[in-house]
């Protein structure tokens, strides 16, 4: 099946070339960081995690979001997802590869990474995160490949693969739960020390993953002659709406707890993210535009989807716009605000803001480009098999 990536139209090769350019830029930036150290990033003693870990956190969600295709298709036998379930599995593969690359980019001593295995430490949540991320990656590679091979041969997939498909369902939940546990078990960080972090992560994941799949479907509809089917897309928008609304609800609960109890620790990070935190006569607010932008995007996206449901119209452009708005709002919420906001103020009630450097952004874009490169190749294979079967 791999040979399918070698044949494509000029748009396909142009797209890969664009991604390749960004990958090259990212690689060059990483070489610089590798030679000098993480001092080339905007991270500091006070904000000790930055873009790398926040992108990792967001992308674990994107990977887990594939569950919203696998679960209806395999457990509820929802036939309309038959063509796109493989897209969810392949999205998980590329998102997880990005996650692992972001973790490696973030390590101060990357060559010692295997110490996590040599000195396995079960009381560290990072150890379990490694286990579930690798487990979910391998499960998706296995299930995706076996099922696609069967489809190509136009036979039923072997029975044993369903065991792994069903195992992958709780695994998808576990990857994002354990990732939430990296944060919500730390005693000194009020913003993260909340039992609702894991459910909120899952809700946002189940909106972000399907949003990206819809966007990919629309792109492939235009450029690769691949039609996911109107029913599948409509069902996905319903899933996205529920998940995004639940995510918003959970976030508003955080607001209630902070602002009704008026406990300073529970308010500070929210204040920093949404209104600017005044500290020693200076207002720190560099994330405020992102958070309000995310709020606006989220409600606009939900409004468009709701309009389409109520007035019973269906328009691919509107679906695309709404999915993109929701995807970016969730990215700003979890891929920026959640991680950076947790470090403000620090345990000594001091405020340091984080601004990523150009080199750091270069590496980040490079890793995203690598993920989309892999995703493109995988989707090329999936669509190629689809076309082969149809003809």
């Amino acid at each position, binding site marked *: 099946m791999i040979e399918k990536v070698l044949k494509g139209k000029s748009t396909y090769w142009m797209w890969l070339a664009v991604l390749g350019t960004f990958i090259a830029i990212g690689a060059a930036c990483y070489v610089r960081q590798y030679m000098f150290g*993480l001092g080339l990033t905007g991270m500091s003693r006070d904000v*000790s995690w930055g873009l790398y870990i926040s992108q990792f956190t967001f992308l674990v969600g994107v990977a887990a979001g594939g569950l919203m295709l696998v679960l209806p298709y395999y457990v509820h036998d929802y036939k309309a997802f038959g063509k796109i379930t493989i897209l969810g599995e392949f999205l998980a593969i590329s998102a997880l590869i990005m996650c692992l690359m972001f973790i490696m980019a973030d390590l101060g001593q990357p060559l010692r990474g295997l110490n996590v295995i040599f*000195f396995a430490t079960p009381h560290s949540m990072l150890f379990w995160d490694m286990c579930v991320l690798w487990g979910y990656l391998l499960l998706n590679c296995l299930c995706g490949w076996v099922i696609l091979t069967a489809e190509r041969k136009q036979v039923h997939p072997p029975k044993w693969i369903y065991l792994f498909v069903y195992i992958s369902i709780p695994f998808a939940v576990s990857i994002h739960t354990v990732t939430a546990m990296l944060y919500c078990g730390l005693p000194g960080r009020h913003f993260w020390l909340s039992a609702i972090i894991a459910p909120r992560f899952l809700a946002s994941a189940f909106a972000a993953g399907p949003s990206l799949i819809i966007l990919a479907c629309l792109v492939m509809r235009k450029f690769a002659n691949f039609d996911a089917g109107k029913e599948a897309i409509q069902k996905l928008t319903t899933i996205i709406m529920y998940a995004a609304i639940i995510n918003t609800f959970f976030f508003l609960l955080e607001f209630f707890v902070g602002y009704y109890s008026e406990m300073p620790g529970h308010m500070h990070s929210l204040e920093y993210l949404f209104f600017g935190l005044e500290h020693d006569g200076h207002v720190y607010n560099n994330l405020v535009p992102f958070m309000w932008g995310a709020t606006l995007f989220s409600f606009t996206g939900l409004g468009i989807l709701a309009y389409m449901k109520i007035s019973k119209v269906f328009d691919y452009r509107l679906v695309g716009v709404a999915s993109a708005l929701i995807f970016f709002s969730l990215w700003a919420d979890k891929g920026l605000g959640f991680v950076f906001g947790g470090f403000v103020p620090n345990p000594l009630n001091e405020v340091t803001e984080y601004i990523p450097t150009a080199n750091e952004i270069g590496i980040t874009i490079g890793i995203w480009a690598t993920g989309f490169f892999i995703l493109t190749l995988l989707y090329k294979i999936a669509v190629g098999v689809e076309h082969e079967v149809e003809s």
Partner: protein
Amino acid sequence: MDTKRRKFLKIAGAAALAGIGAPAIVKLTSSAALASEAVQHETAAHGEVAAATGVRLGMVIDMRKFAEQPELLDQAIAACNKVHNIPHFPNDRKNEIKWIWKAPYANVFPELESIHKSEMAKKAPFAVLCNHCDNPSCVKACPTKATFVQPENGIVGMDFHRCIGCRFCMAACPYGARSFNWQDPRPFIDTYNAEFPTRMRGVVEKCNFCGERLALGLEPACVEVAKSAGAMVFGDLNDPDSEIRKVLDKEFTIQRNPAAGTKPSVYYIV
């Protein structure tokens, strides 16, 4: 190098065997402490912090004494920086490496901050260092056991050669006691001390309660400076006859963020 190492091991071994050197500090038997604890436990109220068994090193910082002699804390910090090859990045908050440092009361005790506090709490800079917790969240978070509790004395130590630089411990520490080497620290060391290792970039570091000096029968560098004024008392918290316990029995002390449940070993007299 070899002879130096042999000499070090000899001294450390001899000190340990004979219990000489600084027996009050590095006490290696703990039967007395065990016996006294059994009694204490019977009357412990719900939620009361139970002391660990064995030797558990701790520190009392008497801020009244530090406030009387403002230069004393600077000297103690300078002694630590020198002994541990701590790099100095002038006006660079991002790269700062801090083992023991100064901060206002409001920052050291944000949970205990009040509007009307003593003049001393308003003005004097407080000493801040790793609390060497009995239940350290950094140790729980570390995925490689590069930071760990030393069972013989309760010190929370660091293995600079095992640390992968994930900085999970920095996010986990509720006291902001940990620093990361964002770049090679060696060019920024003012005076090099060959007795203690320098660090490479990409690893986390923090106060080690001078474990390397204790092994030689010496007191921690900051304590050596501040103890004559009575500003710092160091010793075994589990030994009811130790000097530190006598101070703790007599004076009312506070600890940083006790609600975090980490059971710090550093006490403050304010």
